[in-house]
């Protein structure tokens, strides 16, 4: 009966343990614009992934195209009775389907190149921060040199040497973008290296790779994720620009930029939709990714923590 002898202890209110992820989500959701942008990004990615099932027509299947349907305005009916909601291009291709498939290429090239650049750039940045001395100096000198030339010029140079093609565009984008990842990773690593947990890990005589990859890298990730999001948007823009100039993806795999370029000549005669709608799709994609990146930066930046 000893329990009842105790004065009734106030029930200990254990604050519900908020996981870091839950905190992150609630902080992210503080901005409605950011939430809408995130939803938009998810929708765009879904459309790109499921384009073959969502689109009314396969724009690559020439058997489905009829040149007589060419340059129909938005809302026109096809001979089979379905509607070209966004009109058709000069080949009689449904623009809505073209945009869905174009998104696949644009996003694939943009995200793919950013991921590869992220791995290479982060590895080099961490190496520079860890090795210091001459290695650090030469890697960072290379980064400075790379960043002193504008992206479009570097990409132009590489494509002039290699010719067009999806792989070459991706290579050009990786070469343009790795330097920013390297710079970000290095500065984050330099800050982390001086933290106490790193000292503790070093005192345990852990192997170097474990120190870098298990202890330091996860803590360097927030700034890298932020810069990565923004660089995906930049990669998509650059790819669209290069394709618009006729240096990017080949005509058999039209990205959004190439769709816009195809419609350019008809715009002067008032057939705006061939260029306009792919342009809107490109714009919404880039803006949404950028806005998500902005909010990520605000949430993940410890200096802005309230």
């Amino acid at each position, binding site marked *: 009966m000893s329990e009842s002898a105790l004065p009734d202890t106030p029930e200990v209110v254990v604050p519900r343990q908020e996981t870091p992820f839950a905190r992150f989500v609630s902080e992210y959701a503080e901005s409605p614009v950011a939430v809408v942008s995130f939803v938009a990004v998810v929708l765009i990615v879904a459309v790109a992934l499921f384009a073959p099932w969502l689109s009314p027509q396969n724009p690559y299947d020439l058997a489905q195209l009829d040149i007589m349907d060419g340059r129909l305005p938005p809302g026109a009916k096809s001979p089979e009775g379905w509607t070209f909601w966004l009109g058709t291009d000069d080949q009689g291709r449904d623009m809505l389907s073209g945009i869905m498939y174009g998104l696949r290429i644009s996003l694939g090239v943009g995200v793919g190149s950013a991921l590869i650049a992220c791995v290479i750039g982060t590895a080099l940045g961490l190496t520079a921060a860890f090795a210091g001395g001459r290695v650090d100096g030469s890697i960072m000198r290379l980064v400075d040199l790379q960043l002193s030339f*504008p992206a479009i010029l570097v990409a132009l*140079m590489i494509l002039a040497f290699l010719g067009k093609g999806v792989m070459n565009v991706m290579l050009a984008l990786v070469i343009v973008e790795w330097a920013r990842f390297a710079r970000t990773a290095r500065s984050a690593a330099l800050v982390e290296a001086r933290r106490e947990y790193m000292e503790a890990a070093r005192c345990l005589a852990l192997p170097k790779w474990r120190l870098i990859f298990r202890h330091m890298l996860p803590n360097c990730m927030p700034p890298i994720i932020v810069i990565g999001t923004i660089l995906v948007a930049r990669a998509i823009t650059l790819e669209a620009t290069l394709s618009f100039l006729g240096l990017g993806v080949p005509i058999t795999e039209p990205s959004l930029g190439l769709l*816009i370029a195809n419609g350019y000549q008809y715009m002067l005669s008032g057939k705006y939709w061939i260029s306009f709608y792919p342009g809107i799709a490109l714009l919404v994609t880039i803006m949404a990714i950028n806005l998500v990146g902005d909010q990520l930066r605000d949430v993940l930046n410890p200096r802005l923590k309230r």
Partner: protein
Amino acid sequence: MTTWMLRRLIQAVFVMLAMTVIVFIGVNVIGDPIEILISPEADQAERARAVAALGLDKPLWEQYWKFLLGALQGDLGRSFVFNEPALKLIAQRMPATLELALTAVLMSVVIGIPLGLYAGLKPSSLAGRTIMGVSILGFSLPSFWVGLMLIMVFAVQLGWLPSTGRGQTAELFGVQWSFLTANGLAHMVMPATNLALGNIALVLRLTRAGVRENLPMDYVKFARAKGISPSRVVFVHVLKNIMIPIVTVVGLEIGGLIAFAVVTESVFAWPGMGKLIIDSINVLDRPVIVAYLMMIVLLFIVINLIVDLLYTVLDPRVRLENKE
């Protein structure tokens, strides 16, 4: 100061040399030099003769040496399409590009600084916040799409401005310029605006940040306490202090504008060297490509050098640092 300048010069020469190596490797090792340097219409015998004449049977370092010597003498080969020295072609198209780029620089300063000042002085006003919000668009919108929209609205729908070309030009110092005639100016409005948009946003944001940073400083309080008129405080005292970063960035961006003119010139069919390089890449006119790349790299290095020197002249703190 002199040693610093000398070191900086040597560095520039090395970067230039490195770029010649990259361009040389790009053309001669990654690409097929025979296809690049000999016109595709040549037959087998002609080909063999050309290989010997061009020295493609020699070792690579010897070929590079020849390329370098040629480049130093301004000989970068002849265009296949125009059958003229590639360098001369670039030089002919350069004024059109420079004209466009410099107009864009002027626009970014004339529009960007006042807007930035306003947004910095009244950061919480509706207009101030609108300026900042819209300026994000200046960064993130793809430039070629903005160009298309400008054409669609102002040339096709409203019919106010001509959509393509350079319009009438007039001669000055032996070069044709568009900005000297009313028709040429009308042709320039849209391309220059298109090219300037990103930089307007950049200058605007820099100016705003500078104003926000400088307003709480003691020298501003002191100037106010002395009874100097508010406009004089802003336009003379504050503006002078925020000009250093703006001058640096605007200077560095000139190179970026010339490079980015590739896009604007293609959209508006502006006959500058950017349009020339795109056309040349599409028809594989490699001597012109090489000449363009060498020219623009040289331009970049010279601009970076000048900005560095200007920076030293403008900011005494940098000057003192470099003395040691």
